[in-house]
């Protein structure tokens, strides 16, 4: 019985997670860098212009992966917050807190690149369209989560209150995902993240998939560094710090 749960306890152990995060970071960071550089070349140089949008479609290589990160990071954050709440795992709360800032950044990037794509294609920077509005709500959820955390001095209370907010906000994730199908949205339907065959030629698709991969690995690397910082701040009086830092 005891051994079955050993891995679970190890993931709840701050020194173990601190060390593991440090070991893993370069294994995410370098492949991320390579994938992003290759995807840039593929997307900007090798991919042919779109038959409708010409060269303008190339905004997809930064817009779609940023939008994916904004939603994926929220899901990771809410999952970690949920684990922290249910099993009272401090490391899980630390992980959730490490996600929020990165997620907020990429939500802003997805909104701004979306506006810059919308202007030439739709004729306007912004419309109160279901997809766009839900994405704006996502930004407010991130900002609310961070504001709530910094507004509560007691760390345990900040963890629990922000975790509840993160979990409530999960409702917004399927709304973002399916908004273009449920409502008559100006935003185009997914061209890659769907069950059927992607609706673009390989020369366009491969750089895009590479960019999704690169952004995801990049998030893992940055999040692990933030997690280490968060663990050090929380464990400042623990004896293991001495061995870990010397």
């Amino acid at each position, binding site marked *: 019985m005891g051994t079955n749960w050993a891995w679970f306890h190890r993931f709840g152990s701050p020194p173990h997670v601190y060390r593991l995060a440090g070991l893993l970071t370069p294994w995410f960071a370098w492949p991320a860098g390579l994938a*992003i550089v290759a995807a840039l070349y593929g997307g900007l*140089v090798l991919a042919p212009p779109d038959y409708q949008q010409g060269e*303008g479609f190339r905004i997809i290589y930064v817009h779609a992966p940023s939008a994916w990160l904004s939603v994926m990071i929220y899901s990771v954050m809410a999952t970690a917050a949920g684990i922290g709440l249910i099993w009272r795992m401090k490391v899980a709360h630390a992980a959730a807190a490490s996600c929020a800032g990165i997620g907020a950044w990429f939500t802003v990037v997805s909104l701004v690149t979306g506006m*810059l794509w919308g202007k030439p294609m739709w004729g306007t920077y912004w419309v109160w369209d279901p997809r766009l509005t839900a994405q704006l709500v996502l930004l407010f959820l991130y900002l609310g989560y961070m504001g709530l955390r910094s507004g509560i001095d007691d760390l345990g209370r900040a963890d629990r209150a922000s975790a509840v907010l993160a979990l409530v906000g999960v409702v917004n994730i399927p709304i973002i995902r399916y908004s273009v199908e449920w409502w008559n949205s100006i935003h185009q339907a997914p061209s890659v993240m769907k069950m059927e065959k992607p609706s673009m030629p390989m020369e366009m698709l491969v750089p895009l998939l590479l960019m999704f991969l690169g952004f995801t690995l990049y998030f893992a690397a940055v999040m692990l560094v933030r997690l280490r910082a968060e663990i*050090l701040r929380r464990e*400042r009086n623990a004896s293991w710090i001495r061995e870990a830092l010397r």
Partner: protein
Amino acid sequence: MSEFFAMDGYAAFLWPSYLITFVAIIANIVVARRAHERARTEALRRLDRDSAEAQP
């Protein structure tokens, strides 16, 4: 080359999109590393202070 940067008239929308994305990528790396470095320095300072206090 200039044709590449002109992006068939979409340059004014395309390059700012790439710029803000890469600003975000770099900024997040800098923010994360600084946070870790600060937490490390702070922890080491506490350790030094504690061991100094332990001396007779």
